Structure formats: structure tokens, C-alpha cells
């Protein structure tokens, strides 16, 4: 864990967007008119169902963005506009919400997500090394995006990762290649290490 990279912020920073000017040829982004915005029917129905669950429709913003991301692969401007049209919110409002949360992507991303926890408990047990191995293993695969993530709430299987939502661990370096292989095969990923099958370690937790 030694030798941190010291970021020197300069022009071409790594905070995307900071250096972006508005495109003055565009029209202002107001709430899209349903007369001129095409929204896929499944998405519209999904969002409307989500809105119906809450006393205020705005509450459905995150669920709606999840749905749009599922459909479009990421929260593309088009996806955001569709959500905005159904929810009667401005696209800017939704992009503001989407960029706040780590799981909503406002840039194109690979189809498969591998979130490697590199927070404290996992890194004590070698998460940083695993993360590097995972990045290397996925380097050739455009369908797999590897991200280091903050604590995913599974330090009991540290070091661990969430592969498309499936928690796996404890991981060793070799598992990285296996994850890629399993993803390609399309079946379960690292089935033996899936958290869902893990039993409680508490000796007093009696179960049959």
C-alpha cells in the first residue's frame, strides 16, 4: 500500500466536466415535452409504477435512473431526457442526482461491473493487490469494467468484490482471471465464493 500517486491537478484534470464550457449553439434544457420525446414503453411504465409508490413523484428519481441505466447501459443524455420527460423534471435535475451516486454512470461503461472493495478491512487483507490483478485480467476485455469501491458491507469475506451485484470473497489473485472467465461463460461467477451461501460464523447462532 505504499507509494501513493500524488495527483497534481492541472489543465486536463481528472474531474471530468470542470473544464467544460456550455455549447452555446444548444437550446436550454427544459423539461422535455412528451409530444416530441420518444420514451420506450417499458421504461415509461417502469417509471410510472415507481412514481406511484411515493407520496411525491420526485422520490422515484433514483429508481427511475436505475431503470434507465439498465435499459441504456448508462445514464446517457438520451436516457436522462427520457426519465425527465416521464417524471416532469428537468434533465439537469436528474444529472445532478445521477452524478451524486457512485452506482449511476453518466459516462459510457462496459456491460459488466466488477466493484473491488479497497476500503480499510479489505485492503488490510490484500485488496489493493487483488484490484491490480483484476484490472490486469480485465484489461483485454472491453465488456468488463473494474472499479475500486468503498466498503461494500462484506468485510467478513475480505478481500471481496461485487460482480454485477453478486458478492464474492475472500479473493485471491488467481480469482481475477476466473471472474473474467465466468463472466464470459455467462454462468454464475465464482460460485464457491459467493456470499449468498455463507453461513454465520457465530457459534451461538444455532441452526439446523
Amino acid at each position: 500500500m505504499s507509494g501513493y500517486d500524488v495527483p497534481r491537478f492541472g489543465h486536463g484534470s481528472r474531474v471530468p466536466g470542470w473544464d467544460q464550457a456550455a455549447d452555446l449553439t444548444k437550446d436550454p434544457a427544459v423539461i422535455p415535452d412528451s409530444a416530441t420525446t420518444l420514451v420506450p414503453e417499458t421504461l415509461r411504465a417502469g417509471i410510472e409504477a415507481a412514481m406511484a409508490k411515493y407520496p411525491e413523484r420526485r422520490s422515484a428519481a433514483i429508481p427511475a435512473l436505475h431503470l434507465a441505466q439498465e435499459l441504456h447501459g448508462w445514464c446517457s443524455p438520451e436516457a436522462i431526457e427520457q426519465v425527465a420527460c416521464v417524471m416532469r423534471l428537468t434533465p439537469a435535475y436528474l444529472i445532478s442526482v445521477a452524478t451524486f451516486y457512485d452506482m449511476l454512470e453518466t459516462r459510457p461503461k462496459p456491460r459488466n461491473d466488477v466493484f473491488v472493495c479497497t476500503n480499510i478491512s479489505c485492503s488490510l487483507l490484500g485488496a489493493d493487490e487483488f484490484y491490480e490483478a483484476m484490472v490486469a485480467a480485465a484489461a483485454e476485455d472491453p465488456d468488463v469494467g473494474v472499479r475500486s469501491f468503498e466498503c461494500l458491507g462484506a468485510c467478513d469475506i475480505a478481500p471481496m468484490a461485487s460482480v454485477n451485484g453478486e458478492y464474492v470473497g475472500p479473493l485471491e489473485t488467481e480469482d481475477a482471471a476466473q471472474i473474467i472467465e465466468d463472466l464470459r461463460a455467462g454462468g454464475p461467477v465464482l460460485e464457491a465464493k459467493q456470499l449468498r451461501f455463507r453461513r454465520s460464523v457465530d457459534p451461538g447462532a444455532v441452526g439446523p
Partner: protein
Amino acid sequence: MSIHILFEGIDEPGLNRLEVYQRRGGYQALRTALAMSREDVLGELLTSEIRGRGGAGFQMGKKISFLPRGDMDKYLVCNADESEPGTFKDRELMQKSPHMLIEGIVIASYAAGIGRSFIYIRGEYDYQADILEAAIAEAYEAGYLGEQILGSDHSLSLVLHRGAGAYICGEETGLLDSLEGKRGNPRLKPPFPAIQGLYQGPTLINNVETLSTVPHIIRMGAAQYAEIGTQTSTGTKLVSISGDVQRPGNYEIALGIPSREIIYGLAGGPADGREVKLWFPGGSSAPVLTKDDLDVPYDFDSLAKAGTMLGSGAIIVVDDSHRVLDVAYKLAKFYAHESCGKCVPCREGTNWTVKMLQRIEAGEATPMDLDIMASVQDEIIGNCLCVLGDAMAMPVGSIIKKFRAELEEHIEAARERAGIGSLENVIPVGVADAHAGPLPVH
């Protein structure tokens, strides 16, 4: 050594399904509660003196009694965001015994006179959310949720809301904003959520574990529940223990047992030949303790007396194979990443701390930088809008205080590595001044 309430039979196959849960006596407590008056149920919760299991440790019954009475829309929100590093107990509860949580929510809402409830679960807990969703559907089906529950005058709706990845949404007011479909920025308090929370209505917010305990309090009787644990920390607590221990995982303990029993007795302590260097008793936000503190009783007040906190009940053990500098750096980076950015001391303070630690590692620091770093932590604490800033400043500050000698060694070693010898090479012109201690206040 351990009393089991929440974890009793937790691994029973199919417990997540209504049928099994009921077979084991599930929803009996709800029947008992509905047969009582709302006041009596609240009375039980007050008598049990159960304190919140999410972090702040505030008495649940008291919180309910702050809710205004009357006919307005009131809300219950279950905090299932569980993002505090080292914490994973709610995950196991929701995955394995979702109906216990639902039952707790219905009873608590009854006691508080609430008609609408939500579970805010972190977006990463996809599997657990699916399980909860199925359980909620079953509970509606069986009449444990919905209109006039079990023929009583109590009605409750329950909606599962998935988050999307932001630690700050565990903070109760950030959670409310997020649940309202906004960025998860914390709100100013007062007004407290109990007075003005979700959609401006009075709102009760409790952690998964707190709510899951409610059916047991009703089942056992509050007085008996309060027998467990200590005078001011009643009941059992799920402890998530991780890091350098041999058997990481969740353990249910009676509050007040010596910490050593958890770390060594239950979790097996660090690997052979290693010893505990430092440990976080209540998630990464808690000021660290050292191997000298292993005998502190594990309860709210004893830990507070030791200068730290029980927090979410997550113990992270760091053994002597690790550098404290790296631990501090991980911490600072995490909080900088998760600061919502709304208030100045947290946003800038966490980032400044990260930069200082990077400078140390790059060999560009002197021991005096530790003073600046410590003072920056002091300036964060108490000055932020919510306590996320404090959550970095307290552990980092405690590390500087307790491990100063080691940090100074790292500074020297890093300078050596970087080939920077004398201090003049390190301190940029004009800055030596700034190091020279406090300046006169105007």
C-alpha cells in the same frame, strides 16, 4: 459467553420465507403488540431502553416519544444503508431474516402512530433487496402490512427504496433527501426528523438492527430484555468484526463483555505471531484504540469513557504488520470521497488531509506537518453540518495523537527514500513561517 436473540437460528434454511418464519413463532409479537394499546407498546420500548444500533446510540423509545401526536402524515424510515466501513450486520439480518425486520417495523409504526414506512437499502445490496422485496410482498399478502393489519385499526404501507451508492445517505437527513429523490445532502438540524423529516412530516428513523430487535422486546417483555447487557447499554448487539482476525464475521454479544473476548475469544485475534496494533471499536468513524485498551467493556458508555464510541458495532482490527500511515490514508481518502461537499470544513478539510498524507508519503513533509494535520482535524470537529467530517477527523486525529512517533518515523523514512535530506529542501519558502505556530488573531 453469548446470548442469542437476533441470531437465534439465523441459518435455518428458508427463514427468509414467511412460512418458516411463522413456524418459528414469527409475527406472534406483532399480534401481542396489536392487542396492546399504542401507549403500552411505546412504554415497552421505553422500558427496554434499547439504544439505536446505527451509530448515534440514541434511545429508540425516546425518539418515538418526540414525534408529535395528531393526525398528520408521519413516516417511519428504516436505515438499511449500512455503508460505515467494517459494518455488515444489517446485511446478514436482511438476507436471512427479512420478516423479523418487517415485523419490527410494523410494531414500531404502531407504537408511533405511523402509517407509511420505507426501507432505504444501499443500492449495492442487490441480493438482499430482492429478498426483502419478496418478503414484503408475502407480508402484504398475509395481512401483516396494508390496511387494518390483522383486523386492528393500524394500517401501514411499506416501500423498499434502493439507494445508488453514497455513504452519506446513511446519515439520517442525507437519507431523507435521497429518499425524496434529491442529492443525498444532509440537512440542517434542527428541525430534527422526528419533528420535520420526510416530506416535511414527522419521521422516525431507525437502523435495521434496532428495528429487528423490537419483536423480541415485545416477545420477551421489556423488563427481561433490559436485564441483558449493562445498566445503560441494554440488550444484545451484533458486532461485525473484520480486518486482521482469524474468524471475521458477525457475532451477537451481550453488551458490556470485555472487548478482548470479542476480538480474541470469538474472532480468534490476529494471525499467529502478530499482535493488535490498533482497532476501531465502532466502524471506521470511531477514534482508534490500541492493544492497551483491549479490556474495555464493549458497551456504549465504557467506550465513550475510553474516548471513542460503539458506533455501528463494527470492530476493525489492524495488526502490527501494517503502517499507521496507510491506515490514516485509507481513512482520509474514504471520507474525502464520500463527503457530500455541502459544507466547507468537511469538503476542504478531508481533501487537505489527503493531500498532506500524500505529501508525507512523497517525502515532502516534516514532523511539523503533523501539527498542522492535527490542527486541521480539530478545526473540522464540531464545525460541520453533519458529522461526516468529524468521522474522519476523530480517527485521524486519534491516530496522530496515539501514533505520533511512528508517523514521524514514516516521515523521516519517506524523506530518505525520496532523497530529500535537509529540512530546507522540504519547506517551501515562506511556509516555515506558517509552521511557526499560531498567528495573532486580529
